[in-house]
C-alpha cells in the first residue's frame, strides 16, 4: 500500500488502488475502541444525465434518485433488511446522500467483521421489486415533508435557486414528491449498474487496525467487477451570472433567516481547490468571524445574535460561499457584508490579523483528527475530488497575504452575490 505520513498530526494514510478499480484507504488510530468503515460511490444527486455503459444515448433520470437508491440498497432478496441485520449486531449503521456522493457506513466496538460482511454484501447486491420501491415512496415522502418544515433547509435551497440557472446542485437531494413518484425498479438498476462500479467507488476505514490485513479482508469480500470503462455524465451549461439577486419565502419563524450566497467559478485542479478553500475560510473569518470588525458592529447594534455562519462549498463543477444566520434586518446584514468586502479590498488585509486567523485554522485542522468517524468521512469526501486531506495541513503554510488578496478580488464579487430570506 502507498504510505502517506503527516508529521504535523502524526497520522498515516495507507492507500491502495486495486486492479478492479476500487480505492481503499486505511487510517489506523491506535487505542481507539471505536472502529468505523464507510463505503462510498462518487455519485450523488447531481448526476442526472449520463450514458449507461454499453449504450449510445443519454439517459435522464428523475430528481432524487441517488437518495432513493441509497434507501433501497438495504433491501435483500431473502426479505431481510440489511439495516436491521447490522443493528442486530449491535453496530451503528447508516447511509447518506449528498449532491456529489452516496455512502454506506457503520461504527462499532465489537462485531466489526460480521458487520463488514453485511455491508459489503448489500452494497454489491441490489434487490429492487415493484413492491419495495412503491413502499419507500411513502417513507421518503415524509422525509421530504420533514425538510419542508425546516426553515434552515428552505433558506439554503432558495439560495441555490437564485445562484444557479441550470446546474443540478440547485435541486433538493431528496427530490420532490412528484419526481420520486416516477422512480421504478428498472431505472434504479440502471443507476446502480452505472455508478456502483468499483472503479467509481472508495472505502475508508479508521480505527485500531493493521492496514495490510484490513486490505486483505476487504479484497476477500469483493465480487468480480466488470470494468465498464468511463462513466459519461453530463451537466447543463451554467452561465457565470446569478439568476436574480433576491428571493423571499414565507414560513412561521421567530425572526427572519437569511443566507447570502456568492457564486464562484469552480476549479478542477485539486491543489488549487485546497488552497482556495483555506484562503476563503481565512477571508470569511476576517470578514464576519467572531473577532471581525463587522461582527462586533452588527452584534452591538443587535442586528445579529449568536454567530454568523460562513462556509465554502465546492466540487469540480460548482462552487459557492454561504453566509447565514438570523436577523430582524437581513437586508441590512447584506449591505453591510458588501461594504465590508469593499473595505477589505481597499484597505488591504492586515498581516497580524492574517497570522492570528491562520493559527486558529491550523488548530481546527488538527482537531479534525480525533474522531474515527469524521476522519474517515473527511478522507472519503476529499478523495472523490482528488484531494488528500493531509494537504490542508501542508498547504496552509503556502498561503500568504498576496494570495489572500487575489482570492478576495476573484471570489468576493458584488455582481455574484445573492440573498435568500425566510420570514413570517
Amino acid at each position: 500500500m502507498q504510505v502517506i505520513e503527516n508529521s504535523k498530526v502524526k497520522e498515516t494514510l495507507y492507500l491502495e488502488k486495486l486492479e478492479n478499480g476500487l480505492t481503499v484507504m486505511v487510517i489506523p488510530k491506535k487505542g481507539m475502541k471505536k472502529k468505523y468503515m464507510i463505503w462510498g460511490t462518487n455519485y450523488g444527486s447531481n448526476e442526472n444525465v449520463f450514458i449507461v455503459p454499453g449504450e449510445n444515448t443519454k439517459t435522464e433520470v428523475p430528481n432524487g434518485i441517488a437518495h432513493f437508491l441509497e434507501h433501497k440498497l438495504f433491501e435483500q432478496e431473502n426479505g431481510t433488511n440489511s439495516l436491521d441485520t447490522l443493528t442486530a449486531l449491535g453496530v451503528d449503521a447508516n447511509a447518506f446522500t449528498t449532491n456529489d456522493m452516496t455512502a454506506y457506513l457503520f461504527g462499532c466496538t465489537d462485531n466489526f467483521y460480521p458487520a463488514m460482511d453485511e455491508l459489503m454484501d448489500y452494497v454489491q447486491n441490489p434487490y429492487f421489486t415493484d413492491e419495495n420501491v412503491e413502499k419507500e415512496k411513502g417513507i421518503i415522502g415524509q422525509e421530504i415533508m420533514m425538510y419542508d418544515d425546516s426553515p434552515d433547509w428552505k433558506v439554503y435551497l432558495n439560495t441555490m435557486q437564485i445562484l444557479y440557472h441550470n446546474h443540478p446542485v440547485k435541486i433538493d437531494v431528496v427530490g420532490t414528491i412528484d419526481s420520486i413518484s416516477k422512480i421504478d425498479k428498472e431505472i434504479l438498476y440502471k443507476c446502480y449498474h452505472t455508478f456502483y462500479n468499483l472503479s467509481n467507488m472508495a472505502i475508508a476505514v479508521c480505527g485500531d487496525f493493521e492496514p495490510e490485513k484490513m486490505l486483505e479482508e476487504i479484497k476477500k469480500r469483493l465480487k468480480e467487477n466488470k470494468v465498464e470503462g468511463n462513466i459519461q455524465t453530463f451537466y447543463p451549461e451554467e452561465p457565470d451570472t446569478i439568476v436574480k439577486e433576491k428571493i423571499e419565502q414565507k414560513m412561521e419563524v421567530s425572526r427572519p433567516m437569511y443566507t447570502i450566497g456568492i457564486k464562484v467559478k469552480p476549479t478542477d485542479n485539486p491543489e488549487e481547490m485546497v488552497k482556495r478553500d483555506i484562503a476563503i475560510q481565512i477571508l470569511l473569518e476576517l470578514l464576519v468571524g467572531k473577532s471581525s470588525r463587522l461582527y462586533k458592529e452588527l452584534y452591538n447594534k443587535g442586528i445579529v445574535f449568536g454567530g454568523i455562519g460562513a462556509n465554502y462549498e465546492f466540487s469540480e463543477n460548482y462552487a459557492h460561499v454561504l453566509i447565514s444566520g438570523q436577523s430582524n434586518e437581513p437586508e441590512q446584514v447584506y449591505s453591510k457584508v458588501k461594504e465590508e468586502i469593499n473595505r477589505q479590498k481597499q484597505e488591504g488585509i492586515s498581516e497580524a490579523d492574517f497570522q492570528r486567523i491562520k493559527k486558529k485554522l491550523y488548530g481546527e485542522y488538527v482537531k479534525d483528527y480525533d474522531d474515527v468517524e469524521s476522519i474517515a468521512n473527511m478522507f472519503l469526501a476529499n478523495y472523490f475530488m482528488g484531494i488528500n486531506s493531509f494537504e490542508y495541513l501542508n498547504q496552509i503554510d503556502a498561503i500568504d497575504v498576496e494570495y489572500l488578496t487575489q482570492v478576495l478580488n476573484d471570489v468576493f464579487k458584488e455582481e455574484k452575490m445573492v440573498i435568500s430570506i425566510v420570514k413570517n
Partner: protein
Amino acid sequence: MNYTKKEIKKGIKLHILNTDKFKTNLVAIFLTTKLERETVTANALISAVLRRGSNTLKTQEEISKQLEELYGASFDCGIDKTGDNQVLKFYIETVNDTFLPQTNETILKKAIENILDIILNPLIEDNGFKKEYVEQEKNNMKQRIEGRVDNKRRYALDRCIEEMYQGKPFGLYRFGYVEDLKDINEKNLYERYKQLIEQCKIDIFVSGNVNEEVANIIAENQNITNLEEREPIYNQESEKNTVKQGEKIETMDVMQGKLVVGLDVNSQSEDEKYNVMIYNTILGGSANSKIFQNVREKANLAYEASSRYFKYKDNIFINCGIEISNYEKALNLIKKQLEDMKNGNFTEEEVENAKKAIISSIKTIDDEQDTSITYYFGQEMSGNQKSVDEYIERIGKVTKDDVEQVAHKVEINTIYFLRN
C-alpha cells in the same frame, strides 16, 4: 484512561481524565443550581453576559482574538437541564502542545486561566455588570427564547415536556421566559450572580494528556482560591411529579404533523433504570425497534419514528413526523406496540441485540472527551459510582422478564400533536 476526582474545597470538585488518545485537551466547568421559576431566566442570562467580557479581557473581540492566538481554542457555553437542576456549562478546547509548530507554548495553562477568568472574574462597573452587555444580552435572550418555534420537532418535544411537568421544575424552559427580562438589570443580575457563585455546585473537568501540574494550576488560580467553601444548593433527588394531561393538540403553520407521546416509566429504583434502557431500545431506540419497524417500515407512515429515554426523569418520549390525516392511525400503532411490549411479544434475541447496541455505545464513552465528561458528571449527579465495566456488566444481566416488568409499569402520560 485514568479518572480521578478530588474536592478542592467543599462543594468544588476537580475531575481529571488523563488520556493520551487525543490531539486536544478539553476543560469543562459546570455550575449546578436548582431549577426554579424565580431564577431560571436570570441564570441563563448570566452565562450570556459572562462571555461578553471579563475584567481582564473586556470585550468579546478581545476574548475571540485571544482564543484565535491560542491556535483556535474553542470556547463554548450552554444551559442544560439535568433532572431538576439547571446547569451552566462552559467549555474550552485546545490543541495539545505536542501538535503545535512551536514547542515552547503552554496553551492549556492559558486556556484554563482564560475560562476561569471569564466565569469568575467578570467585568464589573459601578457594582453591577456592564449595563450595555446586560441590555444587549436581554435582547438576544428574548430572540433565543422566541426562536424555539423555529425547530418544529424540538419544539413539539419541549411542549410535551412542559405539559407533563406543568408548574414543576422540569417543565421550565432552560433559557427562561421573555416576561422576566424586563425586571432584570445590571445590578440585580450581578446580585444573582454573586449568590449563584457562592451557593452552586462547581465541577471542573480537565481531559487530555495532562500531568499532575494541571491540578495545581487550577487549585492555585486566584479565581479559585477566592471562592468560599459551600454546602452546594441543588436538587440531589429528582421528584417524580408528572401531571397527567391526556391529549394535547396545538396548531402551527407546519406541513407535517409532529407527534410526541410522553410516557411515565415508574421505575422503583435507580438500578431498574438499566432495564428501562433495554426496554426503550426494543420499543423505539433502534432501526430494529417496534416503532421504527411498524410505523415506518410496515405502515410507511413516517420517516422519523423513534423513542428516547430521559433517565433522570424516568420518562420515555416517542417521536414521529407524520401526515396530519394519519394521526389516529399512527397513534393506534404506537399504542399497539406498548401493548405488545406488555404482553411479552418480543424475543430473547431482541433483548440480546439491544444489549449489544447499548454495550457498544458504553464502550466508546472514552473515545470522545465530551462524552466522557458527560458520563462522569452524570455519575456525580446521580451519586452513582459505577465504573464503565460495572455498567456493561449490569446491562449484560438484563433478562426478558426484567423488560416485561418494565412494560407493565409504563403508562402513557401525554399525547402531544403539532398540526396545521
